[in-house]
């Protein structure tokens, strides 16, 4: 008979629950695999096939670990959209704003874009943009950890620029059309520059971090499957 405990302990490593709780979950799953294995053996199936069939009950150990973690931490009592999108997104937004303020306060030489008459329309620090991939990565990681899909986690990673994008897409054009129809043509180019600085550049930086996390996590998941196949 395979060493089920060693196998389950390896596959559920990093479950991140209390020592006793984790041991109880492992013991319970080990018990289930033992029962399944013995049942297959009683049907006359070879030990090797019985092992394979028992293990086939878990297609993705990473997914099982995540589900158990969520249920045991009772996070699923919260609306999934809150934990998968809003919380990581809002945390990312807060981090991005803190970094923005910090870079304005402690670093010199912000990049300034201005209107023809010298009115500054945009001030941002390159160091802020460079720090944003980390913010996007944190938000995407938290979203994925809470069971978020690829799309949800990428959306939560770019969350800090979504409110600003909404302003550009709705509020500014509307304000210009309604309030200053003549000036619209003149400043349209500047609006594009502003959108570039406030939405596209930070959005790309945040998305880079989010995509990095996706790549990292999917790589981990693939290696988990490899272990399964080897054991089976």
């Amino acid at each position, binding site marked *: 008979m395979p060493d089920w405990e060693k196998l389950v302990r390896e596959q559920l490593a990093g479950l991140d629950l209390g020592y006793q709780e984790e041991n109880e979950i492992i013991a319970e799953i080990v018990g289930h695999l033992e*029962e399944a294995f013995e049942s297959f053996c009683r049907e006359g199936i070879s030990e090797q096939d019985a092992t394979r069939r028992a293990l086939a009950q878990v297609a993705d150990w990473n997914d099982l670990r995540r589900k158990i973690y969520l*249920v045991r931490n009772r996070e699923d009592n919260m609306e999934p959209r809150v934990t998968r999108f809003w919380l990581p997104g809002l945390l990312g937004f807060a981090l991005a704003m803190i970094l923005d303020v910090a870079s304005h306060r402690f670093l010199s030489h912000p990049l300034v874009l201005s209107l023809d008459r010298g009115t500054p329309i945009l001030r941002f620090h390159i160091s802020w943009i460079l720090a944003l991939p980390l913010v996007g990565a944190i938000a995407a990681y938290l979203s994925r950890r809470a069971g978020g899909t690829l799309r949800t986690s990428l959306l939560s990673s770019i969350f800090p620029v979504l409110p600003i994008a909404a302003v550009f897409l709705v509020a500014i054009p509307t304000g210009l059309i309604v309030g200053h129809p003549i000036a619209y043509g003149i400043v349209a180019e500047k609006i594009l520059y502003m959108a570039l600085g406030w939405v596209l550049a930070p959005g790309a930086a945040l998305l880079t971090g989010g995509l990095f996390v996706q790549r990292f996590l999917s790589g981990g998941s693939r290696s988990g499957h490899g272990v399964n196949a080897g054991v089976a």
Partner: protein
Amino acid sequence: MIGAGTKRGTAELAILSVLESGSLHGYEIAHRIERQTRGKLRFTLASLYPLLYRMENKGLVRGAWEVSGNGRRRRCYRLTAAGKKKLLPLRQEWSELFRALRQLAKVADA
């Protein structure tokens, strides 16, 4: 395609139903559901335990370590008072749904 909520609802009903007759450990729950439904409903380890833990959080079942007939320690689940209370309305809800679907199927066939 059957949504996650529907699947979870039917799965909860299945687990509550088999536990009605007494306490069972995880493997027995899955095995009994499969046997009683003649293989139409199957729980894998991966689908069973997250659901059992969720039902435990909701106070529908309670797990406790017991020594089984073959001398092994197994975590056995039994219905709580809340679980027993939920079983009847859940059964009615699902049988109404199936009755409605059967009626729809008859109309479609006619």
